């Protein structure tokens, strides 16, 4: 009995359920580029599912700074240090860390060249490079401009820069935020940010206003956000959609001015959430298309442009799935399982994926959107009848409970990925 139990436990841990296949095969080499929610999850899951795999995670930063909940830093509800996570647990899970950047991917030779001069060979490559700011898409907005008008769309120094500008602003100042056209990282993010900045302004700079200049006519959880703004921050938040001249066509960082076809808006604090694209290495590797994002098939998220390379997270075109940390984590787990299957010579089954995104419109007022996705006609499509946003009319502590769930989600996912 003890022997049988031991055998089963080892089987479970080591994935020896198919010894005839696994033991006959050389261990696979999988390289993962990018240590965010997608990449770190993929590396850990690969190792958990198939400990004999040689898994290397390439990530130059020793600390990851999470974008989810970074809007709370702007509203002085959190410190940036609470957004930061190291890679010790990832390393302890058996993943080899290469603390350097990838400079080139050769899809034919199946190698990755690293900034430290080393070269890694792979049987399968997982690319999770996240986003880069598209510095050529908005006239006037370059890396120098981002020091005057922060984007804060990659959490870190940009986040604290924007927070410090808000804190230094005189009461009565106009905060202007521009939101990009789809697709971009975290579709509800600009509106959560507007909400929490409004929350903070209402307390500390109550004569101030917040103007959102939007390149869209509709946005995620729109009615929920707008109802909450009317209820919590009346007269404080103004949203200008595309059809009313909201599209920002250029910025002037010297004067903190946002230019639209209909006028110029001079800000006391300017937050440009700019157009984005897949991280630069995706363009170099040839996995990004002309849109700047990476098309993938919907079962194992293998690039449709470069076989052997999988792309997950914000960089990938995932059909109906939004660019969120929850989605990145879910995609990474599906991708890792599919890679294990494929390295063992099996065909991965069609997956089902879930996304859940919480937004805070105040510290005790949360709203959510959820979706369920499956492959359909070559893309990840919404499962009909599932998903949707929080109800518009609720009773009791519903919004407070969703705010609590948001915080619990963040603790869970960061523990799952980095803890």
């Amino acid at each position, binding site marked *: 009995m003890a022997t049988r139990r031991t055998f089963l436990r080892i089987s479970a841990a080591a994935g020896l359920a198919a010894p005839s296949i696994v033991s006959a095969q050389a261990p696979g080499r999988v390289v993962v580029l990018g240590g965010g929610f997608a990449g770190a999850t993929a590396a850990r899951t690969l190792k958990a599912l198939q400990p004999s795999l040689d898994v290397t995670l390439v990530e130059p930063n020793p600390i990851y700074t999470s974008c989810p909940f970074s809007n709370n830093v702007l509203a002085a509800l959190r410190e940036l240090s609470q957004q930061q996570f190291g890679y010790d647990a990832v390393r302890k899970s058996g993943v080899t860390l290469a603390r350097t950047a990838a400079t080139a991917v050769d899809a034919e030779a199946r190698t990755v060249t690293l900034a430290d001069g080393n070269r890694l060979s792979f049987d399968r490559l997982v690319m999770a490079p996240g986003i880069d700011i598209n510095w050529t898409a908005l006239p006037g907005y370059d890396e120098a401009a981002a020091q005057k008008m922060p984007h804060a769309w990659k959490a870190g120094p940009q986040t604290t820069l924007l927070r410090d500008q808000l804190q230094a602003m005189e009461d009565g100042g106009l905060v202007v935020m521009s939101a990009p056209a789809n697709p971009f990282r975290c579709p509800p993010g600009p509106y959560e940010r507007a909400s929490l900045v409004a929350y903070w302004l209402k307390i500390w700079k109550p004569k101030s206003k917040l103007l959102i200049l939007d390149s869209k006519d509709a946005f995620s959880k729109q009615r929920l956000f707008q109802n909450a703004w009317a209820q919590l921050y009346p007269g404080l938040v103004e949203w200008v959609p595309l059809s009313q001249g909201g599209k920002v066509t250029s910025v002037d960082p010297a004067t903190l001015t946002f230019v639209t076809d209909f006028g110029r808006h001079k800000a006391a604090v300017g937050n440009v959430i700019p157009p984005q694209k897949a991280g630069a290495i995706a363009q170099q590797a040839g996995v990004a298309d002309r849109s700047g994002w990476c098309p993938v098939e919907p079962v194992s998220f293998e690039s449709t442009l470069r076989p052997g390379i999988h792309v997950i997270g914000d960089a990938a075109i995932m059909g109906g799935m939004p660019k969120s940390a929850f989605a990145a984590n*879910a995609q990474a787990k599906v991708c890792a399982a599919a890679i294990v299957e494929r390295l063992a010579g099996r065909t991965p089954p069609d997956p089902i994926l879930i996304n859940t995104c919480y937004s805070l419109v105040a510290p005790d007022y949360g709203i959510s959107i959820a979706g369920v996705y499956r492959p359909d006609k070559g893309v990840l499509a919404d499962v009909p009848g599932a998903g949707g946003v929080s109800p518009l009319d609720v009773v009791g502590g519903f919004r407070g409970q969703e705010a609590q*769930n948001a915080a619990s989600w963040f603790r869970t996912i960061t523990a799952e990925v980095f803890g």
Partner: protein
Amino acid sequence: MTSRLLLRGPAGALALAGALAAGAGAAGPAAAADAPLLAPPGASSCTGCHASRPLPDSSIPRIAGRKAGEIVDFMNNYRSGAWPSSVMGRIAKGFDEQQIAAIAAWFAAQPQ
């Protein structure tokens, strides 16, 4: 404790799934023989919110190691709207009975 450990492996999970799904095709003996620790479709997404390891101070309950029948009941009640929920009703509507049974069996076989 012993029985839970015995059920950790894929064979246990799939056998349970088979029992609950009343002979669903995906859970047959052939699948059990070939499959490594492969979670059924949808299951791996759940741990985005429901922690795979114990986590203090969370308002979101863990589901690993719970009885499969309980998980099925939860999902059915969320799916039908019989129980009020925030995101779970919206998520449960994306799964049919066989998928729910397989996910429940898989989580029941995970360490508590």
